[in-house]
């Protein structure tokens, strides 16, 4: 008997949950949605139609609570990315994790909410552990939580009513440091998930809207910026607590029955409007796009020999509007690899939805409706849906932003063809940041990330005018680069010598993209040690995307320069320190700046240790053009010369066929006659220097048949041809024999 009693004692007591289990709620949601084609089987919006004003008031309150959470909570933060910039978000969801409303911030992260909730449901978190109101869950794993990369950290808090989970309040922000072997928040040289830093599958870390004491120790022992991370954690929780309270107020005011029906109607209503918008703006058909990214690991992964090779990542996608909305198919993209650029379906969604929400959800409620209207196909085994459970996702954003660009550009092509030209512009996904760690002379160690070029980029050319500088960020609707004075204060030995636009750095065309950004960081008295690495979208040896728009050149990739061992003190005397990448290279060419070790990086650099007067210069955020460069209004070319936007006369003269002369004050004036002549000559040159596609095809086909490619390109094809869709396209295009393949001989 005693034994029995004791066993009774250790049997986990059935928690307060008395309503349906999470597992039941999720399967009910899926069943109803599948059977009817309407979210949760909502075929008519009965609450809205019965009393539209009450219905709108309900949503206004829900939405206001989430907006308010951010406006208040972000001030608890320690990281500039969260407080100043768009690098955070709060949201409220249904019990199944479907989004109801989001705050300002990087809102496409709503894509992952259902992934984490479904994992908890499938693993009976509510049945065994029990879920009570105000439980706090930490999530940063791609596989179980759908998290894009572990640098994006999520806090889920449960909202329970009468023994039933009725929703979740979620807070997210991008950490400054997440404790990987590579310091910072993108572990650029991770080979698998075990090198990604602090990776949490959904785990309860607190109760009653308070973290438990042990959780603080995790930040202190497993990351390099514990104070910042603890404050960010408190920030996420503070916002969630406000949303949790607001949800309970709504339940009290409108009643649980109304609440449960209304949250489903809200999603179905926005789904319908999104589908309407797609039909109103697009032209049905098939839109194809591609992008590439080189991963240079060869020679850098000697410890992990299986990862010690280069990879050319192929990003391939097609968009096809259909009755339910549109289908985005990524089949043909590369397979997953032993590098840090793999995605998971949740992470890929977070990227894909960026352009879709921008294009089709801005005039309705931002909810999970978008997830039903945009259907995605991520082939199993591909970089977007790995069939290996331990892939690294540390830096997926470096390539998934290109996936977003391909989908978003499809919408631009459609609106252009449809006549809504005012909406059509060139989309690139080219961001930059740097990260690292150091120890000052007094032994204080610190980790850091400088997010600035994540905050804003130039806009690609519109189909009717030039793009603007630093005006948007495809991944956040809040374009803000923060302040040099704040980032500098976070990285003791690095000081700005420049933070500006980089002249000439954009895609050329009839209309040019907005110039990208460039900063110069100067190392002063690093103490014991300071070193950094640089993750980057577009730091790839390629352009941001593979296709230009309507005859223009796609936006250039980003790059960085390390100049170690310099004569900077002499330039300081002259007051002529380099202000951007272009000026630094010119000073090196002229011999004014001497550098013992000048390195130009077009892919991620391994850890760079810096010493006194070393310089670190970056360039990111460029964007592509639109239209034939020879059609550019010559006066726009003159203006760019005079404003210093495109300062290299010989370059632009040959690019646009414009002839100009410079007066004593340095102002350029157009030579119209010579310009007409030069354009004619350049058109002739085009025809002289080109060959008919048919001839070119014959010659290229022979190279293909001979597989006459560098190893990275060869392997890229062998991976992409392992997917039937691209294999068929490749074989049909090159007409290669059936036995042809890229498998290693």
């Amino acid at each position: 008997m005693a034994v029995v009693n004791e066993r009774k004692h250790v049997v986990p007591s059935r928690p307060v949950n008395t309503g349906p289990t999470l597992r039941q709620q999720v399967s009910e949601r899926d069943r109803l949605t599948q059977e009817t084609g309407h979210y949760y089987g909502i075929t008519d919006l009965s609450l809205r139609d019965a009393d539209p004003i009450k219905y709108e008031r309900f949503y206004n309150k829900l939405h206001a609570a989430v907006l308010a959470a951010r406006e208040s909570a972000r001030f608890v933060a320690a990281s500039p990315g969260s407080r100043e910039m768009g690098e955070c978000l709060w949201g409220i969801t249904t019990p199944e994790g479907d989004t109801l409303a989001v705050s300002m911030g990087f809102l496409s992260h709503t894509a992952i909410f259902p992934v984490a909730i479904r994992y908890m449901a499938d693993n009976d978190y509510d049945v065994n552990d029990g879920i009570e109101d105000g439980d706090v869950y930490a999530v940063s794993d791609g596989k179980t939580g759908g998290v894009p990369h572990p640098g994006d950290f999520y806090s889920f808090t449960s909202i329970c009513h009468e023994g039933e989970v009725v929703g979740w309040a979620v807070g997210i922000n991008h950490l400054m440091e997440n404790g990987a072997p590579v310091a910072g928040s993108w572990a650029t040289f991770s080979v698998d998930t075990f090198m990604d830093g602090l990776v949490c599958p959904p785990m309860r870390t607190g109760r009653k809207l308070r973290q438990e004491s042990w959780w603080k120790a995790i930040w202190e022992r497993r990351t390099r910026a514990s104070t910042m991370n603890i404050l960010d954690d408190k920030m996420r929780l503070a916002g969630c607590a406000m949303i949790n309270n607001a949800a309970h107020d709504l339940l009290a005011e409108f009643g649980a029955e109304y609440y449960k029906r209304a949250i489903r109607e809200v999603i179905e209503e926005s789904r319908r409007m999104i589908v309407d918008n797609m039909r109103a703006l697009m032209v049905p058909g098939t839109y194809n796009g591609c992008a590439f990214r080189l991963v240079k690991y060869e020679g850098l992964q000697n410890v992990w020999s299986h990862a010690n090779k280069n990879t050319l990542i192929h990003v391939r996608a097609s968009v096809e509007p259909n009755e339910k909305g549109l289908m985005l198919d990524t089949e043909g993209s590369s397979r997953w690899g032993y590098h840090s650029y793999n995605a998971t379906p949740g992470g890929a969604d977070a990227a894909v939805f960026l352009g879709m929400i921008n294009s089709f959800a801005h005039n309705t409620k931002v909810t999970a409706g978008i997830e039903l209207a945009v259907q995605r196909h991520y082939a199993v085994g591909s970089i977007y849906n790995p069939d290996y459970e331990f892939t690294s996702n540390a830096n997926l954003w470096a390539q998934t932003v290109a996936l977003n660009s391909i989908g978003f550009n499809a919408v631009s092509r459609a609106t252009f063809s449809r006549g809504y030209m005012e909406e059509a512009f060139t989309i690139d996904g080219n961001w930059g940041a740097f990260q690292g760690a150091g120890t000052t002379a007094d032994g204080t160690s610190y980790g850091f990330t400088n997010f600035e070029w994540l905050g804003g980029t130039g806009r690609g050319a519109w189909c009717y005018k030039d793009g603007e500088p630093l005006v948007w960020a495809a991944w956040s609707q809040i374009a803000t680069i923060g302040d040099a004075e704040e980032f500098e204060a976070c990285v003791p030995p690095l000081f700005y010598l420049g933070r500006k636009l980089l002249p000439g750095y954009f895609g050329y065309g009839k209309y040019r993209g907005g110039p990208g950004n460039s900063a110069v960081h100067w190392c002063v008295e690093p103490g014991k040690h300071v070193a950094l690495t640089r993750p980057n979208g577009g730091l790839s040896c390629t352009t941001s995307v593979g296709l230009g728009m309507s005859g223009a050149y796609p936006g250039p990739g980003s790059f960085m320069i390390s100049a170690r061992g310099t004569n900077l003190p002499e330039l300081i005397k002259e007051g002529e320190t380099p202000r951007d990448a272009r000026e630094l290279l010119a000073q090196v060419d002229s011999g004014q700046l001497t550098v013992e070790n000048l390195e130009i990086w077009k892919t991620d650099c391994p850890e760079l240790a810096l010493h006194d007067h070393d310089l670190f210069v970056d360039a990111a955020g460029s964007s592509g053009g639109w239209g034939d460069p020879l059609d550019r209004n010559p006066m726009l070319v003159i203006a760019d010369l005079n404003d210093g936007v495109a300062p290299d006369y010989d370059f632009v003269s040959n690019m646009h066929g414009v002839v100009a002369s410079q007066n004593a004050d340095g102002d350029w004036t157009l030579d119209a006659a010579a310009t007409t002549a030069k354009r004619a000559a350049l058109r002739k040159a085009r025809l002289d220097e080109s060959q008919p596609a048919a001839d070119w095809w014959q010659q290229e086909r022979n190279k293909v048949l001979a597989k006459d490619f560098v190893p990275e390109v060869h392997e890229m094809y062998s991976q992409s041809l392992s997917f039937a869709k691209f294999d068929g396209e490749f074989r049909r295009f090159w007409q290669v024999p059936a036995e042809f393949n890229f498998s290693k001989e």
Partner: protein
Amino acid sequence: MASEASISKELISQLVEGTIDDDNATRLQRLPRKDQDRFMNYCAVLQARVSWQDQILLRLGDKLYVVRNAANQRVVKCDCGHEFGDYRQNWKLGCKVRVRRTLAEMREVYDPAPACPEPGWQEVREFFCPDCAAQHSVEVVAPGYPVVFEMLPDLDKFYRDYLGQPLPDEAGDWYADRTADLTQRWAASAAG
């Protein structure tokens, strides 16, 4: 209501010419719902700008259209009048192609120097109209990459379901990629 009102052809042609002022562009962007007759007005504006008579069915690029030609075929046509053939075949294969493979060649189109793609892994392909030399498209892709068919429209569906004005020559096979017919011929000619 503002959102339903037609947008004047004048404003549309200002968009096409790139002369529209920012206030008007912003006004169009802010429409709660787009003017539904835009497409037809757009086509009318475009039709008035071209030198030829063939009916514009869809604009593919700044200087590129799907038209119904004199022979009543749906073909891709350049501003200058050059015809690229059936719109179901990738029109790029009717272009003249110039490829930039070396750093020096890429440096002519990217600035500053480190902004260039990496030779060997990437090449820059420029697609020109054989007659007027208009640059209709640029690809920056890996060597050996199949030329990308950027957009194959489903014209019948568009005109019937989206615009409610079915085309007279609807048929089951208008929405199909026919590019392979061309490459097959080329392969055959290479063999024979």
